[in-house]
C-alpha cells in the first residue's frame, strides 16, 4: 500500500515522508503514554500531513456496493426513454467535493438512458452548481439540446414555501426557466403540472433546505417517488425516511463512489470519465485510520492517567 506513493513525487521523498510521519506518530504515542498535553496545532499539522500525503500518493481503493445506493441506480435504470427526472442540486461549493460527483453520475446515467432532466435548486449558490454539473455532463454528451434533453429552471428563494408550491403546481413558482423562456415551450416540461408528474426526483443536498424538506413538503403531500444524495453529515438523520418516503440514498463520498462504480459496471463507456468520488475514498480511508489512532492514543492516555491517579490516592 505504502509503495503506491512512489507515484508522482519519487520514491526517496515518499519514503522519507512516511518514515518521518511514522516517527511523529510514535512521538504522539509517547506523549499520550506519559500523559503530557499536545497542543492542538500539532494535531492539525498531523491531520494536514496525513491527508496531503494520501492525496499526493493517489491511492485508489475498491468500494463495496450497498442496497441503499443501488436502489437509486436501479430506479433510474428501470425508467424508459423520454421519462422526465427532476434533479435538485441544493448545495454550495463547500459541499461540492461530496455532492458534485453524485450530480454528475446521475446526470450521465439519465442522459445515457435518454431521460430528460429538469434541474432546479433551493440554494442561492445552486445556480452556479447547476452550470458546473451541466458542463461536466456535456463532456460525454456534447449533442444535448437545451429544452429537449434537459432544462434549468434555476433558483427560487423561500425554502419550504417553494417546495410546498411546486408539490401542487410547478408553474406557479417556476413560470419560466432560468432565462425567461416559458416552460410551455420546453418539451422537457410538457405536461408537467406538479412534482408527482416527474417519474423520479433526485434531491442532492447538504443541509437545510435539503432532502429532509423534500420529504416533508413534496413527497408527503404529492406522493412523488424520490431518491437522494446526501452529504455525509446529514445522511444518518435521513435513515428514518428510508425506504418508505425515499427509496434510496447516496450518503457522502462513499455513496457517490458506489454510484460511480455501478455506472461503470453497467456502462463501460464511462470508464474514461474521471471518477471524482472514488479518488476521494483513498485519502479518506487513510485519514480514518489516522483518526482511529488518535482516539486510541487519547484513551490510552486517559486510562493511564486514571490509573496513576488511583495509585496516588
Amino acid at each position, binding site marked *: 500500500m505504502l509503495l503506491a506513493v512512489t507515484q508522482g513525487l519519487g520514491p526517496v521523498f515518499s519514503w522519507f515522508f512516511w518514515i518521518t510521519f511514522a516517527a511523529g506518530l510514535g512521538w504522539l504515542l509517547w506523549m499520550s503514554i506519559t500523559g503530557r498535553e499536545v497542543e492542538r496545532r500539532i494535531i492539525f499539522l498531523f491531520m494536514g500531513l496525513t491527508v496531503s500525503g494520501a492525496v499526493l500518493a493517489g491511492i485508489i481503493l475498491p468500494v463495496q456496493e450497498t442496497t441503499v445506493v443501488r436502489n437509486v441506480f436501479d430506479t433510474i435504470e428501470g425508467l424508459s426513454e423520454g421519462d422526465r427526472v427532476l434533479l435538485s442540486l441544493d448545495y454550495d*461549493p463547500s459541499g461540492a467535493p461530496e455532492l458534485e460527483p453524485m450530480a454528475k453520475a446521475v446526470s450521465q446515467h439519465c442522459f445515457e438512458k435518454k431521460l430528460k432532466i429538469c434541474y432546479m435548486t433551493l440554494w442561492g449558490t445552486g445556480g452556479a452548481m*447547476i452550470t458546473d454539473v451541466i458542463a461536466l455532463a456535456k463532456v460525454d454528451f456534447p449533442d444535448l439540446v437545451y429544452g429537449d434533453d434537459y432544462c434549468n429552471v434555476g433558483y427560487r428563494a423561500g425554502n419550504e414555501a417553494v417546495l410546498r408550491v411546486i408539490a401542487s403546481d410547478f408553474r406557479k413558482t417556476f413560470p419560466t426557466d432560468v432565462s425567461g423562456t416559458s416552460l410551455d415551450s420546453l418539451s422537457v416540461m410538457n405536461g408537467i403540472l406538479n412534482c408527482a408528474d416527474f417519474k423520479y426526483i433526485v434531491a442532492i443536498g447538504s443541509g437545510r433546505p435539503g432532502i429532509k424538506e423534500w420529504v416533508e413538503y413534496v413527497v408527503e403531500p404529492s406522493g412523488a417517488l424520490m431518491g437522494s444524495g446526501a452529504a455525509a453529515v446529514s445522511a444518518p438523520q435521513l435513515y428514518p425516511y428510508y425506504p418508505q418516503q425515499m427509496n434510496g440514498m447516496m450518503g457522502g463520498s462513499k455513496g457517490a463512489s458506489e454510484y460511480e462504480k455501478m455506472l461503470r459496471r453497467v456502462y463501460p463507456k464511462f470508464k474514461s470519465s474521471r471518477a471524482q468520488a472514488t479518488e476521494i475514498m483513498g485519502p479518506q480511508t487513510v485519514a480514518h485510520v489516522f483518526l482511529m489512532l488518535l482516539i486510541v492514543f487519547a484513551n490510552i492516555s486517559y486510562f493511564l492517567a486514571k490509573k496513576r491517579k488511583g495509585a496516588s490516592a
Partner: protein
Amino acid sequence: MKRTIPILITFITGGIIVLAEFIPPWAILREHVLIYFQIIAVFAFFLGGGSLLKINCQKVVRKREDWQFAIVTLVGFFIMLALGLFKMGNPEMVDLGFAADLNASGSWFKNVFDAVKAPLSASMYSLLAFFIASASYRAFRAKNSDATVLLVSAFIILLGQTFVGVVSTGWMPEWMSFFKVENLSLWLLAKANLAGQRAILIGIALGIISMSLRVILGIERTHLSGGDE
C-alpha cells in the same frame, strides 16, 4: 393596534396554510400566501445586505478596530453587486438580453464566484476536518458508560469504512457474517442509528408542532417582542 395587527396577521396566515391542507379549494389561497413568502424572502436578503453595508460604513467612518478590513468587505460587495445586477460580461446577453442566466458559464459574475466565493467557502468547511481531529484526540474518551457507547459506535463506523476493518474480519465464515466489520457498521447505521434518529425526530416534531400551534393561536409571542414598543 401595534400589538393586535401582527397577531391577526399571524392567525389568518397560519390558519389558511394549515386548513388548506384539508380543504382542496383553499389550496389556491395557500399557494398565493406561499408565493408572497417567496417574494418577501428576497427582501430578507436585501435586509442582510443593507445591514452589512450600514455596519461596515459605520466602522470605516468611525475608524473602529479593523476598519481597513471593512473596506475590503465594501469593495467586494459593490464589485459583486455591479457584476450581478448588470450581468456584466455575460455571454448569453448577446442573445437574450437581461433574460440571460445569471450564472451562465463565462459570465463575470460566475467567474468571480468560482475564483473567490467557491474556494473561500470550501476552505472554511474543510477547516472542520482539522477540528474533528483535535476533538477526537482531546474529547473522545471513555469517561462513563454513555461516552463509551458513543465511542464504540463511532469506532465501528470508522473501522467499517477502512480496509483495516475489512481485512481484520475477512476470515469470518458466512454464517456469522453479521459480525464482519463492514456489515456491522452498515447495520449500526441502518438499524440502531435509525431507531435513535426516529425517536429524536418524533420528539422534535412534537415540539415543533406544539410551538407552531401556540404561535398561530397567539399564545406564544416572543418573536413579536423587541425593537421599540
